[in-house]
């Protein structure tokens, strides 16, 4: 099962390297890692998506918590939460027929058109990770020129 772990850290140089080093050094698998600022400029948030059973996730959580620069670790998966991943994908559209097909898939998934070129179209979808994966699967028959996924980010839905 996939788990989403939010990790609040001191916004200091070297902290990202410390977390990444911990994850690779202890041989944990992770799917995605996202880092960004928070409302408090001294705090950064990392969101880690990792596969594994409860024991593995507990170890990751405990090892992260042990780091001197880690303020708080929250396992989001079993809590009410909102999660989003954003994908930007640029697909080849050589002719009108192809463009129509691509736009069809896009509208099925509620993806937005963000750029149109002579022979390509760029789409954006922000949704949960599953929907993003399904969307990309549906795009597969077309020629994907470029693609970027942000990794999952998440916020809780209940007051703390």
């Amino acid at each position, binding site marked *: 099962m996939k788990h989403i772990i939010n990790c*609040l850290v001191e916004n200091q140089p070297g902290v990202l*390297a410390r977390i990444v080093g*911990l994850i690779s050094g202890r041989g944990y698998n992770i799917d995605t890692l996202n880092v960004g600022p928070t409302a408090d400029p001294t705090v950064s948030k990392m969101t880690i998506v990792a596969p594994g059973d409860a024991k593995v996730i507990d170890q990751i959580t*405990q090892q992260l*918590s042990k780091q*001197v620069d880690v303020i*708080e670790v929250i396992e989001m998966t079993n809590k009410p939460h909102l999660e989003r991943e954003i994908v930007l994908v640029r697909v080849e559209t050589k002719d009108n027929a192809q463009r129509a097909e691509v736009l069809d898939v896009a509208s099925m998934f509620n993806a937005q058109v963000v750029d149109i070129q002579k022979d390509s179209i760029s789409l954006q979808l922000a949704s949960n990770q599953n929907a993003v994966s399904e969307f990309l699967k549906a795009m597969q028959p077309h020629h994907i020129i470029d693609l970027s996924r942000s990794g999952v980010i998440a916020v809780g839905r209940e007051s703390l």
Partner: protein
Amino acid sequence: MKKKKDSKPEIKEQAPALRSGAQCVIDGLAKAGCDILFGYPGGTVLDIFNCLYDAPFQFILSRHEQGAVHMADGYARATGKPGCCIVTSGPGATNTITGLATANMDGIPLVCITGQVALHLIGTDAFQEADVMGITRSVTKHNFLVRDVNELPEIIAKAFYIATTGKPGPVLIDIPKNIQRATTTLPTIAPESVSMRAYKPDVKVSKSDIEKLAELINKAERPLLYAGGGAINGDASELIRELAHKANIPVCTTMMALGAFPENDPLSLGMVGMHGTAAANYAVDKSDLLISAGARFDDRVTGKIDQFASKAITVHIDIDRSAIGKNVETHFGIHGYLKPVLKAVLPHIKPSKHDAWVKQIKDWKSKFPLGYPQPEGVLMPQTVIKMIDTLSKGKAIIATDVGQNQMWATQYFTYTQPRHWISSGGLGTMGFGLPSAIGAQLARMNELVVCISGDGGIQMNFQELVVAVEHQLPIVVVILNNGYLGMVRQWQELFYTKRYSGVMLSQQGRRPNEGITEEQKYLPDFVKLAEAHGATACRVTTEKEVEEALKEAFKRKHTTVIECIVSPEANVFPMIPPGAHVSSMIGHLKN
């Protein structure tokens, strides 16, 4: 919930005048209680060494940076206080890695200061630049790069605070040269006044956890205490003794906890694990309640993990929350410092006899004693250790290297007090023995320190012998010379059909074309080598000679090296092969 923001420590004293970063280092160390600093100088720490000239504490110059870290480590293990060391950038810093990793694995508090090239040169491959933050991240509890001299006083205080609280460990401070030369008006800060929002080592143990633990103990029929390094680090040996005696609970210890419970106590089972006593390992197997007190279920203890203590309810008390449930799925974990947990649980414990269980333990102990073959005319290494035990009346502080010598030292010396056993457990670092003995002796000048080493390991840091001699340390270095990298040879004997590959140190039995002459029989000649370093030295080959040499050495106020030529193929037994269950134990005596 968010933890609270850093509250700036309140400033009690008048802000001192302008100080250099280098001076802040000296003042910070002094404030933290440093009385001995170990180290080695170089270009990027010249400013600190300049201030060190007038420092209120002693400086000990090692002969290799690895030696300096092990000395600080030995000092810390012998005292419980943080060890301090300082080295230069680049090669000085990279030479500390083994020492830091050794301390990190065993939870030993150290503060290591490294010089670094000036901030504006970082990343330019400057002379003697190394990415010390990157290299040391995984072998330290924490590390700091100082980017502003105004942060320095606080970082030094934080380093000591982090090193000594929670599960202790080494903390490194990387200080660029220009920061050492810059000035600040900020005062020195005491480690006690530090508070950090992201690091809160204090944990509260709930009343219900204590009651549950007491209930488990009161109900158990075959309870067993399994004490680990946390019992030493957490200063909990008194309380372990109290608990054991109150409810007649037998105690086994890991190697890291030797001395946490007196081995001459009838309830003591000695050491558990691969080379532990048969009785301790049987007790783990048969107990119905295993209470781990600061042990971490290391694979050298557990062997086959899913059969370890399979009949027991397992309780794991540890200050390191991540250690609980890491290797073994324990039934009940208590996250907290050992001392307050034991203190809180003691009043709830009902006195109990556990007659049948205690008798069973006694039977195992007499049925499976430690023992070894004693062929005529060969000096056995175990005999040497026993002699050290007898002649020092079990009072010596034993610092060991790694290998068979270390295991025999665990088995044939009777440990009765904490902090008398100084040995690299988690990392198993050859070369640790001699420098750690020096650190321990400097910390405890009035006690007898004996370093037990192999002919292989002693060569890894032999240069430090000079340090013992020049400071007139009465350390007794006992080299068990079996002519082999003995522990590796033992594994090759047992598990690789005696194909001895790359383990021969002795010159005897070599092919003639290797050009060994009679004078080169001993290579190196440890006696000459020790004498060249200024120590008193002798070579002994019989039990009688060992006895005389030890007696004299224990009286002498001068560093002594005793090279014991011992049986080349003696093995460490009993042994539970790696990853096996106690039922596969080999080489144990039966009465």
